[in-house]
């Protein structure tokens, strides 16, 4: 039970940190043709962090 609550808070903290750091990166990036692709990659990273607990739970159910 305790683990679950802690897991939830860690997850929110992860999302928080990843979004802040990626938005800083986006500002620091030089304007180039690669910018669009980089933004796409950033979005994929954020999505991966968001679905991480689902994957975790699936793994637990599997074993």
């Amino acid at each position: 039970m305790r683990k679950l609550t802690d897991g939830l808070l860690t997850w929110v903290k992860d999302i928080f940190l990843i979004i802040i750091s990626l938005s800083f990166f986006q500002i620091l990036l030089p304007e180039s043709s690669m910018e669009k692709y980089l933004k796409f990659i950033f979005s994929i990273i954020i999505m991966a962090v968001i679905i991480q607990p689902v994957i975790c739970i699936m793994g637990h159910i599997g074993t």
Partner: protein
Amino acid sequence: MDYEKILEEQMNNVIDPDQAADITNKASEITGGLSDIFSLDKIVKATLEGESIFDNQEMIDSLKSLAVYEIRAALVLGIEILVICIIIGLLKNLSSSLGKKSMSDISLLVCTMIIIGISINSFRLAYNLCLDSVSTMVSTMEIIAPILFGILISTGSIASGTIMSPVVIGSVTGTGIILKKFILPAMFAATILALINCLTEKDYVNKLSKLLRNAAVAVTGLLMAILSGIVSVQGLITDASDGLLINTAKYSLSTFIPIVGGFTADTAELFIKCMNTIKSIVGVFGMIVIILVIIVPLIKVLVISLIYKITAAVAEPICDSKISDGINDMGSCLISLGAIMFFAALLFIIFISAIVSMGGE
């Protein structure tokens, strides 16, 4: 012998004064002394003399001063946020003359993060208060419910007492754990996600925050509907069977025992009526404690959420729509938090009233 003496004697047999003091102390900690107006003795006195218990100027005054205090504290918060919003609007308009885009972007990000910091801080205060009030409600119920069931069994409602006791106490403890471990942390997460969302230009976690918030409210509503349904329906059935038992006992006492049977039946009835009065007093005491414990955090949460909503409305023309949306969502999250607490309190009050209305007839 007069009825006041019987009532007081039985009251002392049933209730441990330490436990009653324990409940009052905990409630007074959360409500800041508001609950001291209602003590068990005062309710007993009001019952005996047929007075109104809420006819109390002191209570209205302290509630008013509490609301005024909270509004003042929250106004400071709203003005802080508004000032930062004005700075953001200024920076946005000046950014073209500053030249470099990244400079103004970073300053905007920093300002937004200051707003987030202030908001999370005030949210955490309200959240901790909610957590405390839920714990106090649960512990009050855990003390009050066994006393009520003891009285219920002593009035002859054996089936109600034995069947309902595990149901009610189990669901009170379960509700407490689910609220404290899942629903309130989920609300916390939803609020933080709603705030993070105003950092970025694109929506990344907007839907996620709304999902968590709606899920938390829906789960609480579902929990309340199921548990209160079970308790009321089960209560009706066991109450009917107990009524049958008591009436049969009374009838056979007065009919089949010659001469003294009638007196014995009357005495038994007086005893049961007296115990029922005590049960009502204890139940009312529990309800009042729960209402008081809920009302103080509820006022705080609603005032803060109102201030957030007003700030969002005022800030919209000056700064980004993103930031005002974030502040607005934060207000909605606080209202949801208040709704969850209200649901929990309502569930406990339904439990108490179900037990009080059981038995005796």
